[in-house]
């Protein structure tokens, strides 16, 4: 064991019985998160998991760390308060497509814009699970659900594009069906300074079974996804024989040899946006992996830096000086 592996996966399992539906994609995510967090070299009391409301948001109860199961959509506000109050904590936020993009969409974009050092796991199952099956802001148009018996007429959000548009400094996508990939993405998220937004394709066996099967299914995913790595060619296919290359603002399918090299750190979000737009409708694969990773000022650190700067300039304030100001007068 290396010096830093102070925890095992088991240490992070709480004594609570996990109550997701059998076969739910959340199990595999929980497993991967526990594996990654155990390997971070952080004591478990330094881990804090914060969630909103929804199936995914039960997550904190299953982790033997500090945790806060909050209210619908508001996890970003609470996570921001926790991280500012104690920047030493490793704060992880668990949310879903309804919680994080519908009722909590406003908080989500502001957390990303501020670049609060919180790792955000958005379980996207394109459905409301806990309320028993209504269409969500990521449901495809036309989806028949309990609240859209004739098919949803809503247009869907693309979570990656939303995060890019909000100025997120780390944006990635992974799949519940692929633990190895998931762990690698989560590890990169953990190592990022600032908000790290990870969309996880998650299967809801009950209300939207197979929604990502055509992309993330074990049998098809090599052909139907291209995994984005910093500095590596955009190659995919079971035989690693196919590739993607930018042609202006479009992507073209190529042979592996001709594939372009992916750089998630360029100033413009345009290339990442073009990749995010691959949604299986084209003849091209859906992009997963690392869409964006740039360095930017981190909100919680800057908040404290400002406090320190004022303290250095003025010295610690005394309550008495606040009360007894120069305009005070004495009556004897």
């Amino acid at each position, binding site marked *: 064991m290396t010096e830093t592996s102070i925890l095992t996966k088991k240490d992070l399992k709480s004594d609570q019985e996990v109550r997701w539906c059998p076969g739910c994609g959340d199990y595999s995510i929980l497993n991967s998160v526990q594996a990654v967090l155990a390997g971070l070299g952080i004591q478990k009391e330094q881990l804090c998991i914060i969630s909103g409301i929804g199936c995914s948001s039960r997550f904190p109860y299953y982790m033997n*760390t500090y945790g*806060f199961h909050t*209210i619908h959509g508001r996890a970003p506000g609470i996570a921001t*308060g926790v991280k500012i109050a104690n920047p030493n*904590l490793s704060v992880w936020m668990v949310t879903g497509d309804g919680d994080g993009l519908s009722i909590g969409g406003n*908080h989500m974009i502001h957390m990303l814009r501020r670049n609060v050092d919180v790792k955000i796991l958005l379980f996207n199952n394109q459905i409301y699970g806990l309320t028993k099956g209504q269409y969500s802001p990521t449901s495809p148009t036309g989806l028949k659900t309990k609240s859209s018996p004739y098919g949803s007429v809503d247009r869907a959000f693309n979570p990656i594009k939303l995060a890019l548009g909000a100025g997120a400094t780390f944006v990635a996508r992974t799949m519940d069906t692929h633990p190895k990939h998931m762990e690698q993405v989560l590890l990169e998220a953990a190592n990022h300074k600032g908000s790290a937004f990870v969309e996880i394709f998650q299967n809801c066996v009950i209300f939207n079974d197979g929604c990502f099967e055509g992309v993330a299914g074990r049998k098809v995913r090599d052909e139907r996804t291209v995994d984005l790595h910093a500095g590596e060619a955009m190659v995919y296919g079971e035989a690693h024989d196919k590739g993607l290359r930018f042609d202006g603002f479009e992507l073209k399918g190529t042979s592996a040899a001709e594939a372009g090299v992916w750089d998630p750190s360029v100033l413009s979000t345009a290339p990442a946006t073009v990749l995010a737009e691959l949604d299986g409708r084209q003849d091209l694969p859906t992009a997963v992996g690392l869409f964006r990773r740039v360095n930017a000022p981190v909100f919680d650190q800057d908040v404290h830096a400002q406090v320190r700067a004022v303290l250095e300039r003025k010295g*610690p304030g005394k309550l008495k000086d606040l009360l007894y100001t120069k305009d*005070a007068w004495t009556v004897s």
Partner: protein
Amino acid sequence: MTSTPHPAAELPLQQQESVVIRFAGDSGDGMQITGNQFTDTSAFVGNDLATLPDFPAEIRAPVGTRPGVSGFQVRFSSADVHTPGDQPDVLVAMNPAALIVNIKDLKPGAIVILNRGNWGEVDLKKAKLDVDPRTSGVLDGFRVIEIDINARVKEALADSGLSSKDVQRCKNFYTLGLMYWLYSRPLEPTLDWLAKKFAKEPSLVNANQTALRAGYNAGDIHEHFQARYEVARCDTMLPGTYRNIMGNQSLALGLVAGANLANLPIFLGSYPITPASDILHQLSSYKDHGVITMQAEDEIAAICSAIGASFAGHLGITTTSGPGMALKTEAMGLAISTELPLVIVDIQRAGPSTGMPTKTEQSDLLFAVFGRNGDAPMPVVSCSTPADAFECAIEAVRIATQFMTPVILLSDGYIANGSEPWRLPKMEDLVPFPVTFRTDPEAFQPFSRDARGVRPWVKPGTPGLEHRIGGLEKDADSGNISYDAKNHQRMTDLRHQKVQNVADTIPTPAVYGAQEGDLLVLGWGSTYGSIRSAVDVLLKQGKKIGQVHIRHVWPMAKGLDQIFARYRAVLVPELNMGQMTRLLRSEYPGFSFVSYPKVQGLPFTTAELVERIEKALA
């Protein structure tokens, strides 16, 4: 040189006990500064005082119009005062709109000073006046003094080298100088203030100081007035160190003091809203006092970030007004359910909905006490005067941290922007109530309780005490999620009892005036001063009435019933449709409460309260 010119010897100097001046002009005329300077100088002279600004609802309504009128009322006195006064003795009107908006409030025989320099056809038209009020009869019965302030300032500053626009911006100091002459006030405090304020622009220091002196000297030279007045220092003020303070300022200071006494750093999550934003402004400048502030993206994020900070061991605070309270209610329930300390400040304004943001009201009372989903009890503390907001803020912090509960602190627009002399507390009188965080993992349960029903506060980061909290119902013993029916009853009872236990730590309020008799006047919040003034008037007439004022709105102090029992009836004046009356009727069904509601966006006048109390006594 900062010397005060010698007063004219010829004019008689008349003593007055108490004077109310209202400065009114266009929002660009600097009336707030003028009023504040007059106030500070009066404080310097040793008067007791109370002030009330009246801001226009718009930031800059069109110049010269009625909606653009900005006012500042100050009452200064040689005796104790509790309100800014019902009716001004003096109105300074910088234009026709300022006159017409304020004339109805004046005392009969009041002095009206008009700026003739802004009294042309255009000015009348902007004020929507077909007839000049100087000839229409509306000024009958007042002592009207017309001065072309524009021209006087132009003369005085002929050599200043300033543009004519900048010259005209000194008008308010000319006016202030004239008032200083009329009420025999020293110029030094304002001269000094100007020197500091415009330190970087000496030409403006000079010009404004010159305008101030010119106004003062005009009193001697121009024979506008038949007399000068003097309002002696107030000798009944208790010994101590004082400073003039607005309610929002003292509330912010109280929060800092409370956090200090609790030995906690402050985290304020807030979203701008009238009339609460000044607290955010003030606290955001206190970084050297360990105060962290975040301007959140909305009211909900504001309270949620504060809850997160409380979870992590800070004193979480959020500040807002009615519409923001409405948005925060779900999160308040979360703080109640997770039993985390939190201070929620509601500076009430006139509602419903957006209502009248710059006008005062007390209509969030029942909302504060009951306005949440589920049975969600929360202590509510309410400030009664600008200075009292300091103590109430400390009290809110004390209750929140000692009882692991969110607390609502109610103030209102009248307290927020009004001011009065504040007798500063002696530092040794501020008694610490330091928080102890739990660090011992032995037999730890997050929802175990001490004798007062209070659960432990654990900071994330503490080894061995890892635990999860949330808004789902918790098992009373283990703190794990529980949907058990009996457990829910038990937890609801425990939460209720914990809040009731706060009453063990609060004193029974003192009764002012007759300790038993015909009528008890019960108030809460900003009505304190008006009620006190009215009760004083009637006590002097020998009426057997008492006044009790409620600071702890929820839970209420013990012993109130014994007070009620000593009077034939209890009159409850309040700036809403009778919300406290309803609360009292449900809590104390054996007593007779008479409601006196007023919902006009304005405080009670002493006169209307005297009349209503007399009616209740008849």
